[in-house]
């Protein structure tokens, strides 16, 4: 499917999904509550068959925290971008997609490590690189007296 068809197809799954076209890939914006159902549908449906999770990117939009998923189908060759964001900085929760794509396990741990986005139903959500006492250094409000700025 090309980008336009993908957009129409995803819109037909649930009218809540916001579709944005015109860039390299079709972008789907979903609320965190519907992230997992969208992901599993895209993975299972014969028309889309997104079997490859390319990357998970965490973003601090201030004050929102967001995630960007890049998906690819190795059968059809098409790609899609899923975006999701929450305004809860204290306890930002997203459903883990590591039961759908195994690769999400480490991606989600990294996002949690650096941005503090929590993943519900993740099998092993520990810090990946940093110590547990470290804050979340890629958040814009991260404070560290050791940092020397320009």
């Amino acid at each position, binding site marked *: 499917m090309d980008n336009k068809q993908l957009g129409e197809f995803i819109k037909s799954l649930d009218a809540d999904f916001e579709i944005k076209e015109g860039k390299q890939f079709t972008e789907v914006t979903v609320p965190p509550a519907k992230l997992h159902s969208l992901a599993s549908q895209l993975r299972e449906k014969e028309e889309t068959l997104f079997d490859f999770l390319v990357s998970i990117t965490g973003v601090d939009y201030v004050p929102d925290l967001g995630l960007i998923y890049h998906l690819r189908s190795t059968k059809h060759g098409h790609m899609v971008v899923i975006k999701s964001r929450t305004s809860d900085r204290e306890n930002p929760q997203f459903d883990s997609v590591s039961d759908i794509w195994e690769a999400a396990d480490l991606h989600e741990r990294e996002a949690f490590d650096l941005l503090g986005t929590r993943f519900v139903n993740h099998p092993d959500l520990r810090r990946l690189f*940093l110590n547990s006492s470290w804050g979340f*250094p890629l958040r814009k409000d991260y404070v*560290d007296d050791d*940092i*020397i*700025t320009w």
Partner: protein
Amino acid sequence: MGIKGMKNEEFGDNESLELLKESGTNVLLTTIDDVINWGRKNSLWPLTFATSCCGIEMMQTGAPKHDFARFGMEVYRASPRQADVIVVAGTIVKKMAPVLKRLYDQMSEPKYVVAMGACTITGGPFYRDSYTIVRGVELIIPVDVFVPGCPPRPQALLYGMLQLQRLIETQTIKSRKVRNASHNYK
């Protein structure tokens, strides 16, 4: 204070090395020092320790083309117990710092430290806006020789190691203890 195959005047900064000369007028001690230092400087075994790209240059320095075994840095030791010098080759981050400190503590006296590359001297390219960098290994362990560069060429590391040999020549067994006691790193 000439090193095998390299004349004294080919080194820079000879005057400050003269100032560092620690063994004073004691004839007996000076002679013992000369013998001991000769042994120490000609069998400087480095520790296999490299954390990033400087390590590649350090490997090249040990490889046949530059071959610092010529000067007595005979063989890389995989155990800190058997090593005399630690070449800190590469970025040290906060998570790595305790490991480096521990390795240094595990080395037996006499031990020397060469800080190789910009990262180990000041933090280098990661100096600003980094939440992980240790801004200079001298914050953790005492450094004998700094080799600037990003990364330094093998020739630069060789020069630094030869300077370390000359530095060892200036030291005395008596002052070594005082020197270590004066370092209080956490």
